[in-house]
């Protein structure tokens, strides 16, 4: 999309057979790393889908009542139980960090090093807060007796799906946070302005890496949208 040579290629639906059937490059104007991240995210989509579908199937086929999530995940605020309070805050924290990441990508392409680095740092801190709140939620539920095989609220499958799905998502967030910190350091050091070669690669650094990192982070937010809808709200 950034390449001016793309202007001469067919647009719209005609571009699909043209691009895919063309020589050398199927995804025109997409840096290879970005294409690979998209392919990875597609495979990750299938993993998360399998988890959520197995949760759907487990919940649909049990004859025992499913725990009332708005009761299970309620939090006391000044003595009043507020349903799903922590989950709502977690959702807002993750969306906030997704927004800062989107802006970081924009400032990265504008070569605004300070803004880009600070926004990535803000994203990382948002991710840390999210993981912290998830750890709090896990320990709260474990204290209340929720186990992967049983729980005091209803169907025994609830615990296994909860720990599996939120745990896998939390792992993604944690890995994302680590990479956000690494890339914040690289941005502040000016790697992407000088084209400094990376530690694991001889290729020159480029701000497109920030967009690739952003894709991963937005995907983590995207998955949370589905988990929030299906696991917590449904």
């Amino acid at each position, binding site marked *: 999309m950034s390449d001016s040579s793309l202007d001469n290629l067919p647009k719209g639906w005609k571009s699909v057979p043209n691009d895919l059937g063309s020589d050398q490059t199927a995804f025109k104007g997409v840096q290879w790393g970005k294409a690979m991240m998209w392919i990875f995210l597609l495979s990750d989509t299938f993993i998360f889908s399998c988890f959520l579908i197995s949760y*759907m199937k487990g919940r649909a086929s049990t004859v025992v009542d499913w725990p009332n999530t708005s009761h299970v995940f309620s939090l006391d605020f000044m003595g009043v139980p507020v349903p799903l309070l922590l989950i709502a805050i977690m959702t807002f924290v993750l969306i906030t960090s997704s927004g800062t990441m*989107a802006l970081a990508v924009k400032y990265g392409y504008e070569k605004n090093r300070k803004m880009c680095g600070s926004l990535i740092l803000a994203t990382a801190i948002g991710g840390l807060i999210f993981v912290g709140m998830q750890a709090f939620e896990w320990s709260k539920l474990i204290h209340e007796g929720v186990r992967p095989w049983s729980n005091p609220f209803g169907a025994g499958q609830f615990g296994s799906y909860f720990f599996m799905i939120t745990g896998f998502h939390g792992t993604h967030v944690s890995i994302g946070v680590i990479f956000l910190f690494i890339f914040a350091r690289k941005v502040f050091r000016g790697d992407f302005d000088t084209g400094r070669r990376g530690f694991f690669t001889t290729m020159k650094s480029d701000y497109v890496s920030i967009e690739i990192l952003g894709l991963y982070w937005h995907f983590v937010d995207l998955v949370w949208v589905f988990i929030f809808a299906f696991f917590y709200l449904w």
Partner: protein
Amino acid sequence: MNENTEVNKNKEKPATTHKIGIYLWIWGLLFVLSFFSYMVDWYQFQGLLRWSLILFFMFLKAGLIMAFFMHLFWERYALVNVLLWPMTAIACFVGLMVAEGKYTVFTRLIYFVLGE
């Protein structure tokens, strides 16, 4: 699409940046939609209304994130198609498992409840 002509003149800078307004709008919309989906639980809507509202807000949020935050709206159709068509396989899998789940609960009710 939203290419900044100012940036285009400068060879050093790619033309991929979009105006900050679009990001802030999407960001705000995501907050509002999340708030609405939380309200679905707050007001304890039940049944078909609850499920359709949850799905509506979910797909809207997912679409906004993918289209604008992940830049799919600006990508060429080849990439968009390669990414979105596999979702039909997931939809098929969901359909199969809905049928399977119904059958499992049916047999369980027969053998657990009626069998006693």
